[in-house]
């Protein structure tokens, strides 16, 4: 469904960030893309969704293909219309608008009133908290509610492929679990998912397949359940130790710090 082949991306004509990246998302799957800070995960999403321009970035080699059509030269609006929707890193909800207005913005490419209504109802059932706060200004929602709104907003166009960029960032474990269940539910409803995460445990526990990237390249890939068990992956790439999923890892500490930055 989505194929990234040998992709090279350069920022400001000089900074080479993606160096021959290749990823595939088969129809109906959840694919996890893992990697530490600065690996180029967000850059990958920008290349898929046409947002490189905003950051003075350019695809200099390779291609992104969606359902057989090359999309790396298309504008964001066309890409959304072709069925790709994304949840941006850091949520990026429209904090000054209400919950409903955020959802309206998410549905902007859709002309079909009935479809918009159906999508809206689906979001309301999926996230009852949002249903209670439809008229509230989104900026006043809690971090978890804002992430739900960001996901809901991306679902308003009933996408064929949903890209989520670190949806667990800065959320408490209980909320992470809820987001994970939501992603599974969305996938069951027929949407393929590209899940970008630093929380490898969460991502690999629901993904069919996983990729691990480092400085702009895939350094390892495989079936998610295998990756989750692989000693090397656990030690070197995921920073998980032993059996301790309960245990606070270094990463959780880092997340906490980052959350503070996002919310301030």
């Amino acid at each position, binding site marked *: 469904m989505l194929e990234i082949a040998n992709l090279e991306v350069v920022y400001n004509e000089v900074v080479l960030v993606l160096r021959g990246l290749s990823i595939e998302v088969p129809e109906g799957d959840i694919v996890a893309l893992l990697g530490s800070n600065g690996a180029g995960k967000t850059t990958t999403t920008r290349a898929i969704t046409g947002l490189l321009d905003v950051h003075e970035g350019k695809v200099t080699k390779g291609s992104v293909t969606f359902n057989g059509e090359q999309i790396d030269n298309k504008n*964001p*609006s066309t*890409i959304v219309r072709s069925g790709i929707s994304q949840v941006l890193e850091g949520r*990026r909800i429209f904090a*000054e*608008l209400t919950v409903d*207005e955020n959802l309206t913005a*998410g549905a*902007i490419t859709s002309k079909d009133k009935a479809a918009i209504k159906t999508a809206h109802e689906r979001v309301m059932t999926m996230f009852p908290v949002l249903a209670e706060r439809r008229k509230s200004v989104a900026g006043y929602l809690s971090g978890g509610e804002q992430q739900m709104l960001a996901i809901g907003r991306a679902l308003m166009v009933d996408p064929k492929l949903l890209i989520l960029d670190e949806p667990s960032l800065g959320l408490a474990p209980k909320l992470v679990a809820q987001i994970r269940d939501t992603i599974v539910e969305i996938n069951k409803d027929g949407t393929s998912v590209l899940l970008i995460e630093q929380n490898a445990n969460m991502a690999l526990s629901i993904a069919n397949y996983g990729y691990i990237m480092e400085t702009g390249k895939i350094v390892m890939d495989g079936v998610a359940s295998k990756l989750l068990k692989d000693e090397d992956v656990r030690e070197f790439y995921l920073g998980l130790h032993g059996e301790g999923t309960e245990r606070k890892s270094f990463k959780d500490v880092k997340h906490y710090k980052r959350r503070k930055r996002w919310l301030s």
Partner: protein
Amino acid sequence: MTAIPVLLAASSVDTFIQTLFKALALGSLYSILALGFVLIFKATQTVNFSHGALALAGTWFLSMIFMDWDIPGRWLPGPNWLHWGIALLLAMLVTAVFGLIIERLTIRPMIGEPVFSMAVITLGLEVMIRVIADDAVMLTPRTLGIPWGSDTFKIGGASVAWSYIAAVVMAAFVFFVIWRFLRTRTGVAMQATAFDQEAALAQGINVGMVFAIAWAAGSALAAAAGIFASMSPWAAAGVASREGAFFAFRALPAVIVGGLDSVPGALAGGMLIGFVEIFAGQYLSGQAGILGYGYQQVIPYVVMLIALLIKPYGLFGTEEVRRV
């Protein structure tokens, strides 16, 4: 002579009423101007220095449409005021198209350039439009055929110009329309773009379209402000080119006091500056010797400075006006 104190009291109430209406009217004009500024700034992050020229252009369009071409009177029966109202809306529409063309030719190619360059371009536009208007088209003063002319009505002993009422009604009308517009799908898209351009793009919002709409709406509002400011008693008759254009600059304190990116701020800022200017002009005239002549014109800037000291982003402005 017991009548004298009573007479004095009555006349001071009359003066107050007159001053009040005058302040409301000027505040309305500033608010309409400020609203146009704010819409363009909010969507495009550009301070539009060509607002005065657009106001001037709109006024000139009305004069051509209504007086020279007798539109819609040449086709439509009915009262004069109705014709004038339609001509007013047409003039705003033509100015909107004019603004669209300007946006397309000069602003759109500059998207992504520093905000400062954009502002300088609009400043260049301002000068250009004004020179063309002065030299080519406005050798003779033009009239606008305003139905109520310089008529007034009485409240007790106070006489109030109908133009004042018209300005207030117009402000109420445009603020209502814009407020409704901002709740529509397109309006939401515009606010989303203003808040976070990348996130708006990610939803598939056509940001170029949003820029165009903002410029069209801002230009139409500039036209409205220019037209209602060209009425008696603000201006003697018709289009006064230099005054019309400078008038827009006088609204700058109103915009800044209210906050560059706030619609309620445009209303509050406009009213505040209008009131301060008119009331100070009326009640401090005895102190003109101390304050200096022409002090009314300076007062808006003093208010602006004080407001900026207290609230650097305007009374209603967003703290982080520039977002990356």
